[in-house]
């Protein structure tokens, strides 16, 4: 479904993404874990079209979408739930959702709105509230719902559990699990590695701009030296 080959993104003078390649197959939940500064957000931003890659290819459903603008990517079926959620705080919850479905015909948009409301019962009660008043967890749900309003083929998520209290983190991973059961294709960047690996099919580990490990999620979760791989500690130089 989504194929990334030899992607390189430069951000000012930094080469934030160095020769990254990965695949997300239809119906899979694939995660990308790694420490902060590894380039994960830059990678997602490049795939979604907010940044231009200096080299490499991005293919969506066999179509070459490298370097496409974000609105074009969305129409092609790729939606991003950005880091820090970035909901429109001046809008109501309902308006946020409607904006998410702006590329859909009006009738379909309202169908999708009903779907989202049933998927996120918390939002149902707050439809007319200004989105800025939502709590962190509710805002995260809104951001995800908003992205789903475009009926995407692939949903990208950037650190959905960021800044959330533990009980809200539960909700988020619960949701991811439900989306997985519903057959959605997800590509999730996460910091909370253990929780994420529990709900994912496959995982990639990224550090300093490069993929340093990958495999089935369960395998990585069980591995002894995950912590070392993750943070790059090479045995004992104190």
């Amino acid at each position, binding site marked *: 479904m989504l194929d990334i080959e030899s992607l390189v993104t430069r951000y*000012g*003078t*930094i*080469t*934030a993404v160095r020769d990254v390649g990965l695949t997300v197959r239809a119906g899979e939940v694939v995660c990308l874990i790694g*420490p*902060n*500064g590894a*380039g994960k957000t830059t990678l997602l931003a490049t795939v979604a079209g907010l940044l231009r890659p200096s080299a490499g290819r991005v293919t969506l459903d066999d179509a070459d979408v490298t370097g496409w603008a974000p609105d074009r990517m969305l129409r092609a079926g790729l939606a991003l739930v950005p880091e820090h959620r970035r909901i429109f705080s001046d809008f109501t919850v309902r308006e946020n959702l409607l904006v998410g479905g702006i590329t859909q015909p009006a009738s379909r948009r309202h169908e999708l709105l009903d779907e989202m409301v049933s998927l996120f019962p918390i939002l149902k009660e707050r439809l007319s509230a200004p989105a800025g008043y939502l*709590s*962190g967890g509710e805002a995260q749900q809104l951001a995800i719902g908003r992205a789903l309003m475009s009926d995407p083929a692939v949903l990208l998520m950037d*650190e959905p559990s*960021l*800044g959330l209290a533990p009980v809200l983190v539960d909700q988020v991973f619960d949701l991811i699990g439900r989306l997985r059961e519903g057959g959605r294709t997800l590509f999730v960047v996460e*910091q*909370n*590695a*253990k*929780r*994420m*690996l*529990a709900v994912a099919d496959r995982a990639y580990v990224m550090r*300093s*701009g490069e993929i340093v490990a990958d495999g089935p999620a369960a395998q990585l*979760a069980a591995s002894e030296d*995950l*912590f070392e791989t*993750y*943070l*790059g*500690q*090479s045995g004992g*130089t*104190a």
Partner: protein
Amino acid sequence: MQADRVRHAVAPVLGSGLLFLFLVAGSLLYAATGDAAANSLVTQMLINAVVVLGIQIYIGNTGVLSFGHIGFGAIAGYAFAICAISPERKLRQIPNAPFGLAEVDFTPLQSGLIAVTLTVIVAFLIGLALSRSGARSGAVAAVVITLALLFVVHEVARNWIDLTRGGKTGLSFSPLGNATLQGKLPIYLILLGAIGLARLFKETRAGRLAQAAREDDLAARVMGIDPAVQQMIALLLSVVVVSAGSALRVFELGSINPRLFFFDYTLLTLTMLIVGGRNSVVGALTGVLIITVGSELTRNLSEVDIQGMNWLLRDGLTDIFLGGAMLGFMILRPAGLLGDWELDHWSLRRLRRTEPPPVPPPSTDGDQTPTTVLKVTNVTVHFGGYQALADAGLEAASGEIVGLIGPNGAGKTTLLNVITGLVESDNGQTALGGVILTGVSPHVIARSGLARTFQNFRLFSALSVRENIGVVRLVAKHFRRDRPLPPVGALMAQAGLWEQRDRRASELDYGNARRLELARAAAAGPEFLLLDEPTSGMSDSESRAMIDQVRSMAKLIGAGVVVIDHDLNFITGICDRVYVLDQGRVIAVGTPAEIAANPAVQTAYLGTAE
């Protein structure tokens, strides 16, 4: 380096002199060949050059967009006219002038001095207003305040008929409005002064500090610079020059009315400044030349009668040229034709190529300087409903290297921001060597001995490596005299930047840029270096090299270090102690080995499998 400083002053002076001679020779030549009209054109061009140079001193060095500098010109122009016009003529034009001004009788020189002094006083008030509103490079407030000046002065001049005879007729020196300025000597003298002042100001301490603030206001503050002070100095100097030029303009013209110093003249002078390059003195003069020639050409063209071309060659062509030039350059070449190049840069470059790399001085020994402790306690920070820090803190002693780690969003950078005064904490305290720094302005904290780097580095892009470090050293020389301050060259050599010393910071590759950030912070002579992810984006080998960099730099200046980073190799290799932050709290403290083995730390980073 001593010789270098002499060259810094001598070369610009020589360059300015050269420029002046070139202009004067050129204009004398042109005036000699032509008629009275050519003479007048040259005179006006030289006077415009003075005014534009005045504007350049401010806009070029501070980056603050002042649309109202011509308002200062209006004040000076009217003050000059009211003082210098003979009492007989004054009594006929403004008999009811207040304060008995209709009877004053001053020589042109006296009037000029009065005009400049008066305008500078007004400028001081405007400067206070600008700093109060926090005018920064490009900020809207500065545009509004300076436009207000332009507008208000214009309105006053139009309506205060007793003083200015209003807008319809204005004031004049003689019945026929003849040019009253005899000979060009005053113009030459003032122009020479303006060129010298503008060029030399760029090299002075105030000029350099203003340029740093222009490049990055936040980074400048954090290095100990108070932009408001430098901007005020630049403003006052610029107004001196603009006032002198405006008085000249009125004297040459022999009359004054409000339209003379309003939008049209603003457009003209700003276009001249932009076309040549607002950060350069020779650029400003080039712009004056080009626009004068262009305006004259279009004016002549508009009067020409060519079959079939009358749709283009008509009145208003000059304004099209001016507006088009402004627009064109902003779209195509915002830095102007010459950017920030100066005539003497060419000579300096040749001289510098022969400089040998400096010998690094012996590093300061830990027990020569007394131990200072940085103590941060009980810091709590809320952003709206979100708690960024809860009772966080740390302690570091000089000579120590302390690490601060934790997952994304843990609050590490926020803590650093609180310590350096960029973020207000709800409660908590920062103390350096017993001195409380909580709630103090960032630039004062920097001067007290804390220097920091940024995660997304904030270098002074248009300045060279040497200038980046040098400008911080200028501040340190004044406020950190009792600290070891290795020479700028030594710092550059230590950071491996000697070969790049004259390259612009914006042209450096990533690794060099990071090292420059470090060297620049070291130049501040701090008690503690606070580094925010110095290895972010680096490969493993580069991170390892950074360990040595940080250690040796810290030793060189005798400072302690607090470093935020995610690379555990780096942290383990360099830190004596490590604090771990998660969700705004300190969850562990210890040696790197202890931290790595701590299950709570593992959980914080990887999460629980629950």
